[in-house]
Structure formats: structure tokens, C-alpha cells
């Protein structure tokens, strides 16, 4: 009969409509600002730098591997130099990531041999300022190991175990506290 298929389709939509009142399968809307999708542990947004204990004790040694490997080349690192001798110290003076270019590919975190750079899960970064808000410097990128444990418990535990094992083999050089403040302080981001 002509119109049979049409009616059949209408039955499907009607069934969906009615079941959306009690069946969570049919009512999938997440009321975003009030409730959020629980992100899986692997979920990634932008890179951040991990520090142990205090922000001075960051894991990054400014080896520039991530800078070389970053496909869109959005990482910029300068090695800190000892003010007296002029020799490079194993820590970054400048560490900038341009979030307006970053493609969230996770390659920096993958190639880092020191487990210093990891992927964050924050996605609410919309802002009105293209340069100031999107360019994140070392101060903005540093986050604690506790925070890392909070977002990725399993992975962080593995990393800790690995690091403590390698620490037993070679004790790393004690990083000096930062003498020079970050070259380009970014104004605190206004989270709107």
C-alpha cells in the first residue's frame, strides 16, 4: 500500500519520542554546564609539564626532543644557562606551547624520555584573546604530579614506578631553583 513505508517510519519516531521519557538509551542529552560527560582516563586535550613537589622541581631537562618531534611545531624551548659560568643547566628557561596551533596529537608526550610532558584533560579554554590567552608559558604549563595522578591514576602510577626504578640506577643532578623568572609572563588567564 502506498504510504506504508512512510507510516512505518513515523512509528519509529513515535516510539523514540515516547521512550525518551524513561529510556536512557533514547535520551542521551548531557546537560553540559551543570553535568559533564565523564572523560575516560585516556582522554587528552593539551600538553602540560609535570613537576614533583614544588614547581621548581620540574622533570623537564630541556632536551628539546618534543620541540623537534612536534608535527605542527608549536613548542618553543630555551635552555637555562648558569648566570656565572654561562654553561647550560638541565632545565628550560623558556617553555612555551602555542595552544592556538597545537593539534593535540600526543606525540610530545610519547617521545619524552623523562615523562615530563603529559596530556591534560581541560578543554574549556575558549577566550577572547588570541595571543595572550592561547600562548601558554612555563608558569601556565606547570602542573603537579598530584594533579597528574588525579586525571590519570593508572598511567601516573606506572610512570612513578618507572621513575623510581631509574632513580635507583642514577641519581639525577639536583635542579637549582629558578633564578630567572620566566621571560614572558603571561597574565593570569581569565576563565570566563
Amino acid at each position, binding site marked *: 500500500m502506498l504510504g506504508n513505508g512512510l507510516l512505518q517510519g513515523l512509528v519509529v519516531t513515535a516510539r523514540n519520542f515516547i521512550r525518551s521519557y524513561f529510556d536512557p538509551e533514547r535520551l*542521551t542529552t548531557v546537560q553540559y554546564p551543570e553535568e559533564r560527560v565523564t572523560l575516560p582516563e585516556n582522554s587528552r586535550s593539551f600538553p602540560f609539564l609535570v613537576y614533583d613537589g614544588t614547581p621548581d622541581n620540574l622533570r623537564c631537562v630541556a632536551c628539546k626532543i618534543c620541540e623537534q618531534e612536534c608535527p*605542527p611545531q608549536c613548542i618553543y624551548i630555551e635552555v637555562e644557562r648558569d648566570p656565572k659560568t654561562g654553561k647550560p643547566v638541565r632545565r628550560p628557561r623558556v617553555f612555551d606551547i602555542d595552544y*592556538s596551533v*597545537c593539534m593535540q596529537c600526543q606525540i610530545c608526550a610519547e617521545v619524552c624520555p623523562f615523562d615530563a610532558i603529559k596530556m591534560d584533560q581541560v578543554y574549556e579554554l*575558549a577566550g577572547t584573546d588570541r595571543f595572550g590567552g592561547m600562548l601558554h608559558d612555563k608558569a601556565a604549563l606547570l602542573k603537579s604530579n598530584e594533579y597528574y595522578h588525579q586525571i590519570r591514576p593508572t598511567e601516573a602510577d606506572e610512570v612513578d614506578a618507572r621513575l623510581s626504578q631509574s632513580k635507583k640506577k642514577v641519581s639525577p643532578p639536583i635542579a637549582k631553583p629558578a633564578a630567572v623568572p620566566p621571560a614572558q609572563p603571561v597574565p593570569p588567564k581569565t576563565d570566563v
Partner: protein
Amino acid sequence: MAMDESLKSELQKAGVFVTSIEQLYNWGRKNSIWPLQFGLACCAIEMIATACARYDMARFGAEVFRPSPRQADLMIVAGTVTKKMAPQVVRLFNQMPEPKYVIAMGACAISGGPFKEGYNVLKGIDRYIPVDVHIPGCPPRPEALLHALITLQKQIEQDHLTGKRKLRAYDREQKAEWLVPAYGEHDLEPPRNPEVWKPEPQVRPEAK
């Protein structure tokens, strides 16, 4: 007339709502932003996903995607703007009625993103049109787009209709048309619109 905020909240507790025409007008505008149905690349798929059931942009009154620029308030530049596409984007923006807003969604729209070294890729749509909200990400999650929409709504709330700080759209002396670039022999002409794109001279100090 401006009203004391504390008095207003006092009255609100008593069940009296006081508002100004400006606030009422902005309240109406912010809750019925009609975006232009305009997808350029990957981010457009996340934009569609935002409009679909799970994230449901309709909760913000912004689900009415208009195919015609004449009926749209908001242009979501979702994806890479190539040099070949840039004149069309600017033309569409010119055709939108004031007051109009632009969200640059994703790394490509902000700065060219991962593709910025390409010979046919525009390094950010803000070379030609003014952008109100930037969303980093490649692509941003649908929630990030919703967050940007809320950001824009807050911005609209604070728009002024009169006075010194009034919105550009209500200022008759301001220009309403933006320059549409032309295809040149090697590049777009001009490669950027100096009236819109005014980056300050920036230098990174050489490593000592």
C-alpha cells in the same frame, strides 16, 4: 539609567525584578543566537555533533542553523580557511546583518593551526575579520564549543547600545563592510587587512 547593583539584588529578593531596556534587549539577543550553517573542515563535524542529541545546542537557543547569511547572527568559522576560501568567508561575513559575532573554532581558524605552513592556508581568519571568541583544540570537543557559546553570551550581556562604549553595530560612523581579498598571482591581495589585523610588533629575545 544605570541602577545600583545592590539595590537591584535587594529588590530581587523581595520579588521585584528591575531591568533596563538594554539588559532586556541583550537578554533576548543572547538567548537566540542563530549561527550560520557554515562548515569548512573537520571542526564542522564536531559542530554538527554539538547540534545533535547528545550535546544539544538547542538548550542555548542556538540550534537554528541558517543556510543564508542574511538570517544569521553568529559565524562559527569551523575549520581551515584556505586562501581560496578566504574571499568567500569575508563576503559571507559582510552579508550578515549587524550585530554579528564570530567564533573561530579550532586551531586552523585561529592561526592556521597545524596547516599554517601550507601555501594555500590562511594563517588565521582574524587577518580579515574580527573574531570575538577563540576556541583552541583540534578539533575542540563539543563541550568546548558550548563553553565558547556561553562565553559569547556573557559578552553579549555586556554590550552597550548607547554611549561611548556602544557596540560597533550601533555606531553609524563605523565601517560595516570588510575588505574582500582578491586572488593574486602568488598570494591573496592584500595578504592581510591592516584595518582588522593590527598585531603589535613582537620580538622574542634571542637566547643569551
